[in-house]
């Protein structure tokens, strides 16, 4: 069969298109970004009016997708794992309201923190919300599971969580595609009170969810993505899920594992299969990417029952991404290792691009703060977080989207002065605006630098929802017009920018300074496009 080479992310997007979605909703976040971008670039999606513009944040994305589901159509919402924190409120409650049109929530975890501030495991959220979870082990499964997930969602009127990890998202392989199916027609929910979570209704809906949870377990027992493969050597059984399955098989070139293997791709985990393994095997090795979710479940709090091996007893490392070697060692197989890295090796951390506007902003800010004690700059998540590193060392925090403004306010409340917040334009509209309102209402003495490069740069230059609106938003939130400044972060305006920052630091209220200059990568991309189009016209 003809196969198409797709990234895991792209396989999910193609799966969603072929399963008949009417919209995809997301805020960019590595490693999930390419799912939505694939739909945005798809001719089929355009022809079929599949909605795909970016949302302001993961919460608005989740809620909009829920609204599309309410209206009877299939929707997908995508985010990185920490985005699910932002969307947690609607996500958890959507399990209570239930879905109407099929609804899949994709959350991309980042074990080993390649581009993230933690390695939280989205499966914990799925269990918390009590929704079914799907976790593919390869690109083909990722594609097939989307179709399956929408059917499961529509069968039980429940959102389905789709959990992937970085390697799954960003690894490419051949995928066999199905013919696309049509989108749903608009159709009201059967029960028009189902989405009204007043306590009296929520109580009824929650009982509904508890009842359905038993059905989800029955679905897991017959799921094509949960398989029990017998093996002769029962000194140990191997319970493996998601991508970790590939690392297991890598250690057996003939793909024959001597031990019984339970491969899990659908949660809640299939109880009978786990019981079979527990009955037949002397011990169970749990190999899972991320937190020891299943391992903890099997082990129990006291760990006095079954003999369970995995991340908790040191058979596998407690943190970080798995790989074939770690699994080999856990199986008692010989490890392999190449040559040592020579001693002269040094790190090559990512850095701000040469010509980046943030550099000029940091140089001006550093000059103003020079002479004061260090540690006054609260910042946020974006390319500018690299300003924490040498040679700038200009910022002192990066916690979650939007935390710069609110943390600065808290520090100002504590009496710290002067206090600065540094946030990007896209992060500001994601989660900074509400914090700015708090600061305005308290007339907090903080100076907020909104670095406006007109794009969501770090994830590859997606549209920024606030482009052209930043100063109007600030005015609307009540920042005094005389304390809103738009400056040009360029060397030739350095003295002027230093003067403005200095003046505003002295102002005992909320000031907003907007250093505005387009991201140089975005300019480069725009010029290439322009050049390409001109070429096309010539041809």
């Amino acid at each position, binding site marked *: 069969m003809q196969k198409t080479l797709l990234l895991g992310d792209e396989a999910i997007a193609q799966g969603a298109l072929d399963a008949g979605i009417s919209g995809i909703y997301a805020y960019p976040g590595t490693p999930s970004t390419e799912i939505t971008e694939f739909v945005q670039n798809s001719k089929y999606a355009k022809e079929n009016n599949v909605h795909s513009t970016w949302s302001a944040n993961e919460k608005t994305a989740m809620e909009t997708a829920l609204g599309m589901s309410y209206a009877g159509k299939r929707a997908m919402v995508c985010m990185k794992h920490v985005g699910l924190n932002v969307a947690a409120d609607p996500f958890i409650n959507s399990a209570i309201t239930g879905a109407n049109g099929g609804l899949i929530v994709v959350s991309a975890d980042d074990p080993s923190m*390649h581009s993230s501030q933690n390695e939280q495991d989205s499966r914990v959220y799925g269990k918390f919300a009590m929704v079914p979870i799907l976790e593919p082990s390869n690109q083909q499964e990722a594609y097939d599971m989307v179709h399956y997930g929408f059917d499961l969602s529509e069968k039980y009127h429940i959102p389905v969580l789709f959990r992937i990890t970085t390697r799954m998202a960003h690894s490419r392989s*051949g995928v066999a595609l199905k013919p696309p199916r049509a989108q749903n027609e608009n159709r009201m929910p059967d029960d028009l009170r189902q989405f009204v979570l007043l306590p009296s209704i929520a109580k009824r809906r929650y009982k509904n969810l508890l009842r359905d949870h038993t059905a989800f377990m029955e679905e897991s027992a017959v799921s094509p993505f949960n398989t029990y493969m017998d093996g002769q050597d029962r000194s140990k059984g191997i319970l493996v899920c998601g991508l970790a399955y590939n690392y297991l098989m*890598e250690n057996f070139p003939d*793909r024959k594992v001597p031990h019984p293997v339970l491969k899990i791709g659908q949660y809640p985990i299939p109880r009978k299969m786990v019981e079979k393994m527990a009955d037949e095997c002397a011990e169970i090795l749990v190999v899972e990417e991320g937190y020891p979710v299943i391992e903890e479940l099997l082990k129990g709090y006291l760990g006095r029952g079954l003999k369970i091996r995995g991340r908790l007893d040191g058979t596998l490392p407690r943190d970080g991404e798995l*790989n074939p070697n770690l699994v080999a060692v856990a199986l008692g197989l010989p490890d392999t290792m*190449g040559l040592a890295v020579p001693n002269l090796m040094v790190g090559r951390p990512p850095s701000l691009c040469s010509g980046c506007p943030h550099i000029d902003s940091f140089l001006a800010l550093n000059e103003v703060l020079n002479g004061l004690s260090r540690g006054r700059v609260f910042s946020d998540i974006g390319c500018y977080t690299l300003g924490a590193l040498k040679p700038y060392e200009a910022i002192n925090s990066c916690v979650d989207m939007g935390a710069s403004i609110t943390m600065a306010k808290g520090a100002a409340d504590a009496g710290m002065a002067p206090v600065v917040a540094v946030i990007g334009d896209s992060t500001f509209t994601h989660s900074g605006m509400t914090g700015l309102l708090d600061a305005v209402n308290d007339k907090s003495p903080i100076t907020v630098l909104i670095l406006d490069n007109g794009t969501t740069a770090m994830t590859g230059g997606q549209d920024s929802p606030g482009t052209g609106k930043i100063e109007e938003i600030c005015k609307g939130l009540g920042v005094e017009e005389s304390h809103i400044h738009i400056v040009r972060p360029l060397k030739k305006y350095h003295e002027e920018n230093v003067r403005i920052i200095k003046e505003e630091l002295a102002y005992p209220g909320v000031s907003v300074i907007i250093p505005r200059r387009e991201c140089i990568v975005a300019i480069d991309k725009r010029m290439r496009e322009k050049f390409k189009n001109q070429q096309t016209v010539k041809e």
Partner: protein
Amino acid sequence: MKKDIILAGVGGQGIISIAAIIGYAALEQGMFLKQSEIHGMSQRGGDVMSNLRISHHEIASDLIPFGQADMIISIEPLESLRYLPYLSPAGWVIANTRPFNNIPDYPEIEQVVAEIEKIPHHIALDADAIAKESGSPKAANIVILGAASPFLDMAFEKLEAAIRHTFGKKGETVVGLNLQALKAGRLFAEQHI
């Protein structure tokens, strides 16, 4: 046939193009392929690597195990050394000797090249100079690919066809320059094996 290849470089140097060309050639021969890439923050001038696995049999892991890579292909000398733990005892390192120096503590280039020359099976070449000589100064990555080509166990014509396919949209001139770069790299490797 199976080839496990670590592609290394600095963000923006073009390792993804090399992966795409080898990948296309492999798929045209009906091989299986898995390729894991780095996206996101690491691209901002940081070190980047990609795991490219091609095989006539189905591939399990997206990641190449340590100590089992058949090749490390690096567009940057220091980066070729970063991934040595992946190299199998019989594996080859094909490395550019032209440094990409965007860090304050970059080691002496002579020492870096000396370390590359300690590796039992290696091809070290100034791909930027060769690219320039061959008239395609922007194609250092393709020169490196050419130098790696004798170890790919695949007919050279298959790679040429993949280059035609990859750069076809950019016109005959670009295709021609890249084919020259590929040949120049190949020639260097053949003279230095």
